[in-house]
């Protein structure tokens, strides 16, 4: 019997090395797509009777042959508590309830039921914080961005907005729509804006609301594609020269921003994998607005 089990999970080259207890995750798409597929894959491997000790996290969209895991996450030993982390029945329950979609872990490609995610939330959180907990570099970056921008948690809203490639997937909210939703909450004093889309910045600037602070933390897309798309076509050296940060540092900045988004009292986001990640980190769907086709998915 081969010691490598191939896994067919939403594209790419995925497999499990039984001898090394290593899940090799090598596929394209964005960082959070790979995290959600990674969590699903851990469940799949458990259902086959194996525990995942290590994840080799190749992000083919960003680089052709580099394991980003150690640059982003804390590696934890599973050997002493594998059953506490995940039982076979939990893994099967998870897979029977939700799966990766274009708007995060959900039941169907065009449907979203928050009760599905709430049902598996304890499993999701356990696996996320075991396999994908931010390392100290990201915690430091998060603290830095928070301090240098004097960011607060109470009475704040965090908007994570994109257009670019998301136009192909769904109708996207306008800046006015984002703000009208936020204005339903009278206590919002600060609104933080995160985007990789320069048209989003200009849309919000035209509104001229002095509560809005654009957080200039990651490079902008220069066309209608998501910034991260096809980054494998440029070397890390070219990336550093162009953006004064490495590809790993870029991903660290993104993860730091996700932590900050989850710390804000209200989160307003576009439909994507953050639809799963942000409420999971917040521990609740309360005060999360997740738009799809101009309606809040959470309702």
């Amino acid at each position, binding site marked *: 019997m081969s010691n490598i089990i191939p896994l067919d999970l939403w594209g790419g080259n995925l497999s499990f090395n039984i001898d090394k207890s290593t899940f090799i995750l090598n596929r394209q798409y964005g960082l959070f797509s790979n995290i959600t597929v990674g969590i699903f894959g851990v469940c799949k491997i458990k259902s086959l009777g194996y525990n995942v000790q290590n994840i080799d996290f190749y992000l083919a969209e*960003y*680089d052709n*042959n*580099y394991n*980003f895991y150690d*640059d982003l996450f804390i590696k934890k030993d599973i050997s002493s508590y594998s059953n506490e982390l995940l039982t076979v029945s939990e893994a099967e329950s998870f897979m029977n309830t939700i799966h990766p979609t274009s708007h995060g872990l959900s039941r169907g490609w065009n449907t979203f039921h928050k009760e599905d995610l709430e049902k598996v939330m304890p499993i999701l959180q356990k696996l996320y914080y075991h396999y994908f907990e931010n*390392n*100290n*570099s990201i*915690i*430091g*970056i998060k*603290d*830095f*961005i928070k*301090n*240098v*921008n*004097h960011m607060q948690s109470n009475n704040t809203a965090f908007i994570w907005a994109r257009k670019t490639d998301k136009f192909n997937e769904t109708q996207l909210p306008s800046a006015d729509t984002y703000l009208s939703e936020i204005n339903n909450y009278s206590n919002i004093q600060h609104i933080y804006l995160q985007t990789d889309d320069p048209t989003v910045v200009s849309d919000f600037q035209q509104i001229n609301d002095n509560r809005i602070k654009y*957080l*200039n*933390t990651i490079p902008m897309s220069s066309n209608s594609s998501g910034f991260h798309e096809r980054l494998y076509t440029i070397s*890390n*050296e070219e990336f*550093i020269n162009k953006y*004064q*940060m*490495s*590809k*790993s*540092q870029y991903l*660290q*900045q993104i993860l730091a921003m996700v932590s900050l988004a989850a710390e804000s009292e209200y989160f307003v986001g576009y439909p994507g994998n953050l639809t799963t990640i942000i409420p999971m980190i917040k521990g609740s769907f309360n005060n999360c607005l997740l738009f799809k086709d101009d309606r809040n998915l959470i309702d």
Partner: protein
Amino acid sequence: MNAIIQHSFSSGLGDAIVAISEYLHNAEILISNGYKVDLKINTTNNMYYKNFDFFDFFDEDNFKIFNSIEFINKPIENINGFEIKHISYGASKPGLHWWDLFLDNINNLQIEIFPQSGLTYGNLPLKNNIKLSKQIHNMYQNLNYSNYSSIYLRPNDCDDNIDLYENKINEIINIYNNNNNVFICSNSYTLKQKLINNPKTLSINIPMEDTQGNHIYHNQRISDQKILKERAMLSLLEILILANSNRVYFATSWNRISNFLFYSTINNIPISYI
């Protein structure tokens, strides 16, 4: 057992100080585990000037732990009989940035990589604190600065960002009201000019700063090696001035950690975000 550290001096002076601190720290760990450590200083992509004397910048005493030190002008990507233990800056080949570690005996030895945590660097238990050269210290003594605070304003690379000044004007006025002397440091010449005429202002004039900036890609804009060296020495002097302040007040429009402040943090200078 043998170890080779390659220091690739290819970005800013702050980055260089962090990289040196990190590999000095790890060299101590390697030596205490029985390794003989050689240092290769790769100046291929150095943006200051070529053929410089490294020890005009940094205190030579820090580097006496190494079995040998060699300056090279071509990056090392592999060494016969050695394996790569560490490459700085993620998905890169050796010799691009910061430092790399080659070992002839890869084992479970854990090297310690500093988190990219910017201003929390001061909490790191460094085994070997980098010191700037005696020349830089002499330059500082000759300034005769005392009892001052510093404002460090860091716009984007190559960005003379006046908005950063406008956005922080109230905080800057407050700092001037509460300090007898204020050292102004910025990679934006325009920002410095806004404060240069205030009688409380202390500042360093860096040659050609008005036309060529003072941060990166010096050697692409200035060909005079003497001026390039003077600019690098004065930038290091600025690092030392910041690191002797009562306090550094820091603002950036870039949301990126500035390693220019690393020397201040390892010298336990309090830093306030304005």
